[in-house]
């Protein structure tokens, strides 16, 4: 004890390093989910009001400076709205047919392969302390039905998965930060299937199942529905196509559709 008092600095450094390494080892071995529990909930609750305030300030300020572009966007949205309303009218008939099919389904006790998916919207309340990783925390958690492994999307496309969750918070790892397989289809030709199985420097890499498939740079990839991700979610755009003669595979490099650094609102599929 006397030695510790006389050598405060060395003692502090040793204890702090041992603690930090211990937390790190535990966190890595548990898959980055060591933050669950009361600490995450309390700290998340502390930071959440400041995030909300900042979003309001940011929204107000950016609105003042982007008045003309907002006006233009408003006109465009009004036109789109009119077209969509016409489509809704034409789809009403289809909807009533669908309702009849649903009643038939339930009367025959038919259980379909796909179920309905609930969506929970949340705000990004904090980001990791780097400029290259894309791991962030949202203000929705177990109280809304969010679970570890829940798929997270945004208006731009597929964001990632929930890696740890607690009451009132969930940590999301983006698709470029986690090496998990994503089954894809090419948006312009739904018959072309493939798998994205690796990430490198913010991009996804993978291969098409048919090595003779015609894919090119600029093609949009969407989730195929096979695996953990529901079908039809935009993944990204192909930036490079190469043929790997060793493995005899057509490999693709994909830039994600989502701008992770600009994410503010996301939706979690329950």
């Amino acid at each position, binding site marked *: 004890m006397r030695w510790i008092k006389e050598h405060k600095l060395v003692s502090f450094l040793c204890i702090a390093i041992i603690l930090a*390494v211990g937390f790190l080892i535990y966190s890595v071995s548990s898959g980055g989910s060591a*933050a669950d529990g009361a600490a995450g909930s309390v*700290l*998340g609750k502390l930071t959440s009001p*400041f995030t909300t305030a*900042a979003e309001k300030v*940011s929204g107000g300020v950016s609105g003042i400076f982007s008045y003309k572009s907002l006006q233009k966007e408003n006109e465009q949205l009004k036109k789109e709205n009119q077209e969509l309303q016409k489509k809704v009218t034409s789809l009403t008939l289809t909807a009533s047919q669908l309702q009849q099919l649903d009643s038939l389904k339930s009367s025959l006790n038919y259980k379909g392969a796909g179920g309905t998916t609930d969506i929970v919207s949340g705000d990004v*309340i904090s980001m990791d302390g780097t400029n290259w990783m894309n791991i962030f*925390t949202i203000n929705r958690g177990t109280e809304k039905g969010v679970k570890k492994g829940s798929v997270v999307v945004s208006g731009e496309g597929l964001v990632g998965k929930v890696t740890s969750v607690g009451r009132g918070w969930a940590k999301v790892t983006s698709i470029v930060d986690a090496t998990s397989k994503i089954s894809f289809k090419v948006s312009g030709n739904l018959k072309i299937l493939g798998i994205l199985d690796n990430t490198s420097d913010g991009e996804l890499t993978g291969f098409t199942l048919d090595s003779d498939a015609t894919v090119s740079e600029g093609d949009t990839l969407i989730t195929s529905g096979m695996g953990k991700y529901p079908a039809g979610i935009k993944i990204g755009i192909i930036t490079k196509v190469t043929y790997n003669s060793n493995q005899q595979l057509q490999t693709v490099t994909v830039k994600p559709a989502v701008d992770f650094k600009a994410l503010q609102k996301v939706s979690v599929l329950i």
Partner: protein
Amino acid sequence: MNRYWKGAIAFLAAFLLQPFLFSLLPGLGIVPNLILCLAAALTYVYDENVGWMAMGAGFALAMDIVSGPYVGIGMLSIIVVEAGILLFKKFFNVENLVNSAVLAILVTWVYQTVYWLIATIAGSNYGYLYAMKTIIWQILFDAVIFMIIYFIMIRKVTPHRTDRYFG
């Protein structure tokens, strides 16, 4: 109020302002690391600095819990930075603007490098050059905050050092 209590309030304010800054400047991708700047500046300015180092490590741990990929990664990075500052003070025992500016630049670079190293060992797929893509802007933001804190605190510390009854 005891200066350590004031320091704790400053660290708490930095911790709460960090997500505020991120949400205020979305799309920029870079926000100054307030806890790093505060811990580094206070460790540099004060001679009895174990308290500041402990606070910096503690709040870095809190930030890891809230938003880090792994708990302890930011804490370990900030401890390495603080130890580096002590070494810097030992070898460059002259306090002037140039030394402070050099330290302000080194602090961010060392922090980001150690962070990247630990993340790579833990399985991250990012190359060093990709990770350092925006380091210049990060250094700029952090250096500004560091120098502001340094200039505020050095005025308070200097009379303290010349007081023969301090301690």
